[in-house]
């Protein structure tokens, strides 16, 4: 009786964790540490930086261009509140006091909205410029071709 051949064991690739997953763990730990150690900063960052967090959640494009634009503009609007928070003792009360100001909140969120608007409008503007340049070049090329064809009686 012939012996059954043992099935050949396939080499299995070592399991590797996705790099984003450990980063999420690190971020979670950092956020937890921030909430535990500096709850004022966490409140301030969480409320004023809400547009950036929304963009972080929604922007799935490569390089996250909308997130970068929103975050930069949002950050620019948060510089003054952060200074006021720091000058007010940088406690939880001070944080609530800062974020309670409607103007501060509107400015920070408006800046985030402006960043989103820039990320949407700038490509349109650039597109307009490129199309205009292409049209102008086509006109020049056609003129040159017509001149050469006329000089040598070439057919179109």
């Amino acid at each position, binding site marked *: 009786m012939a012996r059954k051949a043992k099935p050949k064991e396939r080499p299995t690739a070592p399991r590797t964790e996705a790099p984003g997953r450990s980063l999420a763990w690190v971020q979670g730990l950092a956020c937890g540490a921030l909430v535990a150690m500096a709850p004022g900063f966490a409140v301030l960052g969480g409320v004023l930086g809400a547009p950036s967090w929304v963009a972080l959640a929604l922007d799935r494009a490569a390089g996250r261009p*909308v997130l970068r634009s929103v975050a*930069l503009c949002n950050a620019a609007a948060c510089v003054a509140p952060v200074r006021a928070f720091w000058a007010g003792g940088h406690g939880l009360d001070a944080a609530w006091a800062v974020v309670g100001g409607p103007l501060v909140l509107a400015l920070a969120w408006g800046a985030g909205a402006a960043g989103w608007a820039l990320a949407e409008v700038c490509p*349109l503007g650039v597109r307009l410029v490129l199309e205009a340049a292409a049209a102008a070049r086509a006109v020049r090329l056609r003129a040159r071709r017509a001149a050469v064809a006329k000089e040598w009686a070439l057919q179109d």
Partner: protein
Amino acid sequence: MAALPDAIAVDPARPLPGAGGGLPACAAIDRRATGPGLMALAVPAGLSPRARPLADLPGKPIESLLLPLGLATAPGPAPGARGQYVICRAPPGPALAETPGPWPEAALLDQVLRPAAAALAALAALGLTHRAIRPDNVFRPAPGQPVTLGAAWAAPPAMHQPAIAEPPYVAMCLAEGRGDGHPADDVYALGVLLLCLALGEAPLIGLSPDAMIRAKLAHGSFDALTAGRRLPALLSDLLRGMLAEDPDHRPPAALLADPMAARARRLAARPPRRAAHGLRVGAEPVGDARSLAYAIATAPEAGLRALRSGATDLWLRRELGDSALAMRLEEQLHLRALPPAEASSAAEALLLARAVAILDPLAPLTWQGMALWPDGLGPALASAPPDRQRALGAMVAAETVAAWGEARAQRADPLPRRAEARLWRGYLTQPGAAGGMRRLIYELNRLLPCASPAVAGQAVAQLAALPAALEAAAAAPSRSAAGPVDREMLAFIAARQELGAAPPPETLGADGAPTPETQLELLARLQARLHPVPLPALAGWLAALAAPRPSEWRNPARRVALAAQLDQLATAGMLAPMLAALRDPSALAADATGYAAASAECAQLDAALAALAEGGAGRAASARRLGQELAVGLGIAALTTVLGMALFG
């Protein structure tokens, strides 16, 4: 040919009746001197004068002969057209045809035979023949004076000879196709002239040429012409020799200058075999081999039937008793082996031509009921109506002359005949406008005027006269839109062989006529070699036609400039600079290079335009990427500004 002095002019308004021996003649004026009067003999339209006598005879010291002085052109009988004229001395008196009554023997010997024989001997020494000895072309200044032979140079040889004056093998030919013949044929004609003068009238009056030929063949020329009439003994002996059937048996002209010596020359010739019962071929029965050959030549269908049926063979063996001739006929023609169904008309005609040559080695070349000597083919073709011309063309294409020469090899070497047969066939079958029937006609008629409509009526027989004639034609308002050189003129130019190789077929248009540029090239060469004087009208004509071709000159502006340059050069009248401008190699190369560069540039521009048209998606992607980067940049700028303001107050 000797150039005719400018001082000699033709005066067509002063006709000279009877001076041309049957050809129209008029006075010619020599402004230099007051010597003997001149006359101009009109060359028949569509025919060529005799080239060799016109080239060899002027200036030769030959007495008793109206020598040619040269060839001239003058207004001809047709209105507005010029014709060719042969200039020679005017006859010294009236023609012998106008002299009534029989001549005494002594006068015939002293005043006719001796001077005429001396002239014929001089001609024979030059390798020439007269071929126009007849009563209306022999002249006498006054009674008792020696006669002068008339001119015989303006028409093909023996063309105007009556059948009585020629031996049967010449009389049966087409009038234009009798050829230069042999000096002995002149002796025969002189014998007939002597006989007519001795009798006081022409014998065989009232007989048709065909009947005359049959009578001469059946009874021999002397017996047929004298018909038992009494002649002086000396004259009778002389005429018997002069009218011998075989030209080799006739006394040479030099010997006739001494009639007693000529009389003493007797050649024993075997009398021809005669059959007891005749063989009917065609209309009448024949009784000897030569008459049979003549009957086959004149009635080819009946002759072919007689040959195929074996009747000829039987008759030759049983009735004529000439088995050797019958065997030779069978050996050469293989009549029994020839399947009748496969024989074409050309093959049948070839067979008949060979049969005639075997039966009668003296006979001329025969073809489909026609007879001619090979050296008479040129005038016969030139004067033939289209259907006869086609028949003669088929004869040339079948190289019949070679077959005929081989069938009568005992009379003459067949090799020259074979060579000329191949040469003629080559001209006829040569492709392109430089070949064909017209080329053959011009080859065989060296002084035949060009029949092209561009120079019609100008009697241009030599290439040297062509540029001036074309200059005159170019000035006329009715000039052709296709240019001066057509197929006809191309054949004429090619036949004169002054330009070497004929234009290649790719330089010819759809109708076989040369393109304007080829015309310009041909005529520029002609002008440079033969007529180096300005031809402004012709140059203008060619400049209008030979415009730069778009397929060769690509740049329109350059074409316009070149056309203007051609017009400017045309005013100078020289064709070679025009051709050089039209074929300037450096300008052509520059034009071709520029065209290639322009084509490449256009292709590049087309590709760029296509890329622009198809690049919308790419530009959109680039715009999105650049726009987002721009937004990020603006965000960085805002953040940097705010941070700076926070840090520095």
